[in-house]
């Protein structure tokens, strides 16, 4: 397998995600998903792999909507993609000839909506209704909306009401059309955007019909498999045993495929036989010396998104950096420095930190850093 850090992977090279993909397909029979993950965890690769081989009864459309600046653009994007995919799929095109003829017969669109006399909302609703009406009850129209939180945030910054309306429309379409499924994905949590909207009066729960799913790091077995395949593909020669180097990589980067690709590429650049200690040195250089993976973002995100919670969130992480702690233990420690903080405040902040992938709860009900890489960075900067 060829090392490709950050690039687009061929579907057959997306390893370690089949159980999740199976679960997503199964779920789509009955509900949509709100898929979250840290950046570079492999969401897009999963979507591309799913798009490449959907079940026969599902027609899948994948949109990266991060550049959307208006609802009209969203509708146009969806419309064009539907047209393009249908033009490529003979089977679905033949099934959906009525939709194609109703919606422009494959003509190239300009700036205007497919039915310019209607609003964007009406266009979207009618387009989807019309599409799903032509599907059998067991068939599914699946829309992957990649980076939706960014799109909604873009809209919110221009006009919060429009952002709310888009979320509401997507939600009501799912309710109205039983064959319609959506997967929202995004690296910035939709919860942050919703909190901003709630601050200006939004009261709906526009994703309460979607089941949350998080893209986790690889299992140990998959991470080892990926590291081995990449090392062999890159023809990396090792002085220490290959197994020991694989293990070091997998452990040091928390089994995350993006970092496994990066580390193997870095080892390849060394152009010499590799020792186990090279792995640690490489990662230290990337995290501490140059912060090539920009872990300082995790400090700065607290400033940007946590508002007045930031000081306590920092204290919580500073304590968890040393050892895993239960909520009460953590609260007691923070009380020594911030006497006004309540246990509920702490729980609220821990929930937020957990949603944002900083921390997780272990089997002993203690909170701990979710990723060793981030913990190491935290220790180097704030330890």
């Amino acid at each position, binding site marked *: 397998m*060829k090392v*490709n*850090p*950050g*690039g*687009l*992977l*061929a*579907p057959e*090279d997306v390893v370690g995600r089949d159980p999740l993909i199976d679960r997503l397909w199964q779920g789509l029979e009955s509900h949509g998903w709100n898929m979250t993950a840290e*950046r*570079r965890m492999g969401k*897009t690769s999963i979507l*591309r792999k799913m798009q*490449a081989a959907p079940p026969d009864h599902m027609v899948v459309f*994948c*949109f*990266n*909507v*991060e*550049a959307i*600046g208006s609802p009209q653009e969203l509708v*146009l994007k969806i419309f*064009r*993609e539907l047209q393009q995919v249908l033009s490529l799929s003979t089977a679905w095109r033949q099934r959906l000839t009525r939709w194609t003829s109703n919606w422009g017969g494959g003509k*190239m*669109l*300009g*700036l205007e909506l497919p039915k310019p006399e209607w609003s964007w909302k009406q266009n979207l609703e009618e387009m989807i209704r019309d599409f799903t009406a032509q599907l059998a009850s067991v068939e599914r129209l699946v829309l992957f909306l*990649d980076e939706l939180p*960014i799109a909604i945030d873009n809209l919110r910054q221009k006009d919060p009401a429009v952002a709310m309306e888009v979320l509401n429309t997507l939600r009501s379409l799912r309710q109205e059309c039983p064959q319609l499924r959506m997967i929202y994905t995004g690296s*910035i949590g939709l919860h942050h955007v919703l909190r901003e909207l709630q601050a200006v009066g939004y009261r709906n729960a526009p994703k309460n019909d979607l089941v949350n799913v998080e893209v986790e790091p690889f299992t140990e077995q998959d991470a080892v498999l990926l590291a081995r395949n990449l090392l062999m593909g890159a023809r990396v020669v090792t002085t220490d045993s290959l197994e020991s180097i694989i293990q070091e990589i997998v452990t040091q980067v928390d089994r995350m495929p*993006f970092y496994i690709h*990066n580390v193997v*590429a870095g080892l*390849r*650049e060394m*152009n010499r036989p590799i020792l186990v200690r090279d792995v640690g040195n490489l990662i230290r250089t990337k995290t501490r010396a140059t912060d*090539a*993976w*920009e872990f300082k*973002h995790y400090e700065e*995100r607290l400033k940007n998104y946590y508002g007045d919670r930031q000081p306590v969130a920092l204290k919580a992480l500073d304590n968890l950096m040393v050892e895993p702690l239960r909520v009460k233990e953590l609260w007691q420690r923070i009380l020594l420095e911030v006497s006004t903080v309540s246990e509920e405040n702490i729980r609220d902040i821990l929930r937020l930190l957990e949603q944002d992938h900083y921390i997780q709860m272990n089997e002993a009900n203690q909170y701990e850093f979710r990723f060793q890489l981030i913990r190491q960075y935290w220790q180097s900067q704030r330890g």
Partner: protein
Amino acid sequence: MTLISAFTPSLMSAAELEQIFVQREPLAQQLLDDIITSVTTPAKHFNLLIGARGMGKTHLLALVYYRLLAAGADTEGLADKMAIAWLREEERGVADWLDLVFRILRSLGEAESTAQLAAQQLQQMPVPDARSRATAILLEVLQGRTLVLLVENLDKLFGGLKKTGQQVLRSFLQEQGCCTILATTPAIFPAVQERSAPFFGFFYPIHLLGLTVAEAVEMVQKIATLRGQEDLARFLLTEDGRSRVRAVHHLAGGNARIYMLFSQFITKVEMDELVQSFMKMLDDLMPYYQGLVDSLPSQQQKIIDFLVDYEGRPMMVKEIAQGCFLEAGTAGGQLRYLRESCYVQAVADGRESRYELREVLMRLCLQVKKERGRWVEIFVQFLRIWVPLADRPAWLQELLGKSKLLTDEYLKLALNSQEDPVFMSCQRDLMAALQAKNSQEIQEVLAELLANQQLATKEHSDLQKLLNAQEYSRLGQRMQEIFMGDSSDDQGQSSEQSEVAAKTLSFVIRGLSHLSKGKYEEVIADCDKALETNQNNDREWHERGFALSKLGRYEEAINSFDKALEINPRQDHIWHDRGFTLSNLGRYEEAITSCNKALKINPSRYITWHRKAMTQFVMGNYEIALESWREFFQVFQAQDNRPYDVVRIIQRFIDVLIPRFTIEPVPAMLDRLIALYREHHLLPELNAALTNTLGLLLPDTISDTTATAWLDLWHSRFSNEPELQIALQFMEVTVAYKKQPSRRHHLWLRLPQEQRPILDRILGLADF
């Protein structure tokens, strides 16, 4: 006609680019492989080459481009699967996705009419329509092919696209999966590094390493060969040629462009002309750097100007703000921009950051422009003297200066012989490897040397085994037995040839013996063995005496010298060595008598005049010592070429001066002595010697007070001597470091960046 462009390598032909390509072959292959994989499979690679201006980014990009074209022509079906668009450095004004698509189509249009028409079509549409249809039109032109996008200065392109344009590009790349990118940037920039940016982690950053000295030599050689300058290519194999490149390396780092420019000046002229050559190069670079500065907004120009004024010393934001009459916040903002665009770099000083110009040559050019070229000349002058000195280890100097077998004349004779080019080439490489104490290279050269000696299998195998085991001493012995055991074997060779061969091998063997542990003991054992068979060999007695003297066995050494002089009393260098050894024993009167004997035989032996002067100085006979120094300067001045060992001679004097400089009337005598240096144009050598001996101040045997007094002595008396400024600058930092070694990092920041590694090397410290 051969075009070698230092600034626009994309104008060079594929063959020329290949011919002068060094260091990055594996990387070039990998990049090409990534592109071909992207063209032939659904995987898509995005590589970003990162390197400061002149590091060879465009050269590499252009080379990959031509190799891709060649692969397309050679591999069936490959060319039909790709469309190559190259957005060159000159592409400016890309402000959104539409602009980018248009530029891509225009670039594709250079090779295909459909793309050309599509670009025209876009231009003729109303802008909103063009914006809406750009993606579709591009996809139509591609017709299922993979777009290979080569982008120079991705940072600028992304700066123009802004976040919205970047988001559209990322959407396109992910949704369509039909594009691979190989891009360059002078530095990593926020749009690809920040987690909140659309392209975080998307590109794989490949930091281009600077050329090492060996790679720089290789490149300049290749350029010389391409230009048909074979004599220059050969010259670069010599010690002087390499030293010249090494001197430039201290200023240019690994910047490939500088070597391309310098290759025009590094002709086979004397090292003394390096300064003029270098100043000429700075003059040629001036419009380039001036243009870069002129393109900046005025506040940023002011900051650059301020940093140039401080001659390379990195400054803090508040100092810069004050010096430029800016608010601290404004200065910080402008510095951030200058940093992102690679004009300045930040160096940590405790918790603060200091800023300096990133490229040494840019600063030097701007300094010269601001009529501070004299300082630059002095620094290049310093490098001219210091680099060969640092390159040639003291043990080799001794070897060259002392061994009867290895005088410079012999070495030159051997080096200039054209009789056996392979042998001579190996020998040159061996000398370089010995100088560098690079045992792996020594191994390789010796292996090649042995392979060319037409030895019997048994002999070859013996030598190879010893070589593999790195048993240099035994290897030397065995070689001596094989090659020099019986001189009657040389019947087939002319006497001159056999002498050259003998001397060359002797050089090899001596070099090997010096590499081995306990080198002087081995020399003594060698001599003893030789003397067992022939007691009347003055050369062996002299070598033995010298080795004993080196081991501090002075009495025995004197006995050996006396034996040699009994056999041949007309050997001035033996009298000289005897004098040196006697003065080490404190027998100064006898030492002076020995020196006088040597000078009677050879009055032009300047080193003996210096030895005599030093002995008189140590005895406290300052006026007489000054007289001897006057003789030294006169004799030295009369030499045809300025001998390379003068700095070491001065260093020996500094060695004896340090414990005595506070004794009256030494300071006053020093004024008169320095006047002699000035009169005889030896201040640059004194500058280098003072610098090179700074390590003598560090041991605990020299108190902080003495070190400070040493600094005060030179500061108070010679701070107005421009040619001693480098030494004074280094001395100031060294004395401060002696007092507070934990503040090394902070103290080094008093020096410009090119001087910091030099001080490391002089003081024997790890890299800064």
